[in-house]
C-alpha cells in the first residue's frame, strides 16, 4: 500500500472515531458549550482547519459567538466582528456555505473582517450553515493559514459536523420543559454569557488573561467531574472563587 492511501486510511479511521465520540456524548448528559468546543477542536485535530468556531443567532437576530477550538482573544474577535460582516454573516443570511479561497481578494467585500483575519495569520475561510428544517440557526466557521480553502471532498464532512453541532444544541437535557427549539438556543447563548461573566470575575480575582481564566474554569470542571456551565454559575453566584480553584492567591 502506498503512503497516500496509508494517510487516507488513518484519516478515515480518525474521522470515524471522532463521530463515534460525538455520538457517545450526545446520548449522555453533557454541557453544550463544552460539547461545541470539543467539536471545533475535533475539526482542527482532523486537520480540516487551523481554527474553527461556532456562531449562533440570538433573540435580536445577531450572530453570537458560542464556542471555538481555542479561547484566544484575537481569535474571538474574528468571530465577534462577524455579527456585522464576514463569511458567517453571509452564510447565515443566505443559508448557503460561503467559501473564500483567498482573503487577499475580499477587502472590498468585508473591509473590517478581512484585515483582521489576515493579520491573525489566516488566508482562506469556510463558513457552513447550521440548519434546522429550513431555518438557519447560525454558522460554523473554519480558518486556514494558506489560500485555497477546503478541498471539495472535505466540505461534505464539515457540513456533517455542523449538523452534529445543531443536533447537540437541541439535545440539552437539563431543560425539562424547554421542548422548543427557541428554548434550547436561548439556553446555549446564556451558557456562553455566563462563561464570559465567570471569566471576567476570575481574571480579576487571580489576575489572569481571559484565555487562562477559561482554562481554569474548564480544568476545574473536568477534575471535579462538573459541568462547565455549573462551574461558571458557581463563580458568578460567588460560591466559587479563584482561590478555591488555583489554591493560591
Amino acid at each position, binding site marked *: 500500500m502506498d503512503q497516500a492511501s496509508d494517510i487516507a486510511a488513518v484519516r478515515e479511521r480518525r474521522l470515524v472515531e471522532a463521530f463515534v465520540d460525538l455520538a457517545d456524548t450526545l446520548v449522555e448528559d453533557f454541557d453544550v458549550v463544552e460539547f461545541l468546543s470539543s467539536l471545533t477542536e475535533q475539526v482542527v485535530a482532523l486537520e480540516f482547519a487551523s481554527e474553527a468556531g461556532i456562531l449562533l443567532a440570538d433573540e435580536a437576530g*445577531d450572530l453570537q459567538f458560542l464556542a471555538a477550538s481555542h479561547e484566544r482573544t484575537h481569535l474571538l474577535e474574528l468571530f*465577534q466582528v462577524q455579527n456585522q460582516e464576514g463569511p458567517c454573516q453571509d452564510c447565515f443570511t443566505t443559508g448557503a456555505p460561503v467559501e473564500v479561497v483567498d482573503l487577499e481578494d475580499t477587502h472590498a467585500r468585508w473591509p473590517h473582517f478581512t484585515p483582521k483575519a489576515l493579520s491573525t495569520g489566516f488566508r482562506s475561510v469556510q463558513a457552513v450553515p447550521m440548519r434546522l428544517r429550513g431555518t438557519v440557526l447560525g454558522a460554523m466557521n473554519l480558518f486556514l493559514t494558506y489560500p485555497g480553502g477546503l478541498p471539495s471532498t472535505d466540505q461534505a464532512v464539515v457540513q456533517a459536523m455542523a449538523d452534529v453541532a445543531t443536533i447537540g444544541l437541541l439535545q440539552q437535557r437539563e431543560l*425539562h420543559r424547554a421542548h422548543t427549539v427557541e428554548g434550547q438556543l*436561548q439556553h446555549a447563548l446564556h451558557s456562553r*454569557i*455566563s462563561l464570559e*461573566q465567570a471569566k471576567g470575575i476570575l*481574571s480579576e480575582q487571580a489576575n489572569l488573561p481571559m484565555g487562562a481564566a477559561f482554562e481554569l474554569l474548564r480544568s476545574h470542571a473536568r477534575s471535579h467531574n462538573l459541568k462547565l456551565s455549573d462551574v461558571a454559575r458557581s463563580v*458568578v453566584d460567588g460560591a466559587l472563587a479563584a482561590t478555591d480553584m488555583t489554591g493560591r492567591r
Partner: protein
Amino acid sequence: MQQRRIARVLEAVAAQADGSVPERLCAAAAQSTESFGAGLTLDAGNGLLQTVATTTGGQDGERLQSDLGEGPAYTAHRIGTPVLVPDLTLDASWPAFGPAAVECGLGAIFAFPLRRGSVRLGALALYREAAGELGDEHHADALVYARFALDLFLALQSENPPEELDQLFDVGSSSTAEIHQASGIVSVQLGITVGSALAVLRAHAYAEGRSLRGVALDVVARRLRVDHDR
C-alpha cells in the same frame, strides 16, 4: 437585522399613556403580543417571586402564582428558559395553579425569564383568555420585552437610575464577550453583583457619551477602572 424590533419595542413602551416604566412595559408587551394581560415579577429571595407591575388583565394570573408559589413564571425563572403553555387545560405541570387559572378564565400563558447568563432576576408573563400558540413574531417580541425588562430593573437598582428610556437599552450595541467579561471584572472591583456591574457600566457609558462596547473593551484591557456611579 432585528434592531428594528428593538426600536419598535422601545417606541411601544414610550407610547404608553401613563404609569411607571415597568407598568408601561407590561402594557406594551400585552398589546404587541395580542395578550389579555401581562405581569412582571422579580425574585424577592427565598425562591419567591414578587409582582412589580401588571396590567389589569394580568392581575388574576399574577395573584394566583403569588398565592400558590407556582406557575409558568416560577418555572421560567428557575430553569432560565421560556415556558410556553398554549393550552392550560392540557398542561398538568402545576397541580394547584393550573386548574385555578382555568377557573379564572385563563386559556394560555407564556412566561419568559429575565436572564442574562447567570444573572437571573425574575420573569415576564403574558396571559390570554383563548388557548393557542404564541406565534413566532410575538415570541420574538416577547424575548425583546424580557431583555428590556431585565435592563430596566438592573438600572433601577443602581444608585443613579437613568431617566431616558434609550439609556436603558443598547439599541445600537450588540452583546459582546467584553461586555460580560467587564461586568465580571467590575463586580469584583466594586464588590457588587454582576447584574449591578452591568448597570454601572451602562451608566458610565451614557454619562461619557461612549458606547457600552467601547467602555467594556477599555475595562477588559485594564485601561479604565470604573467607579460606583455618582
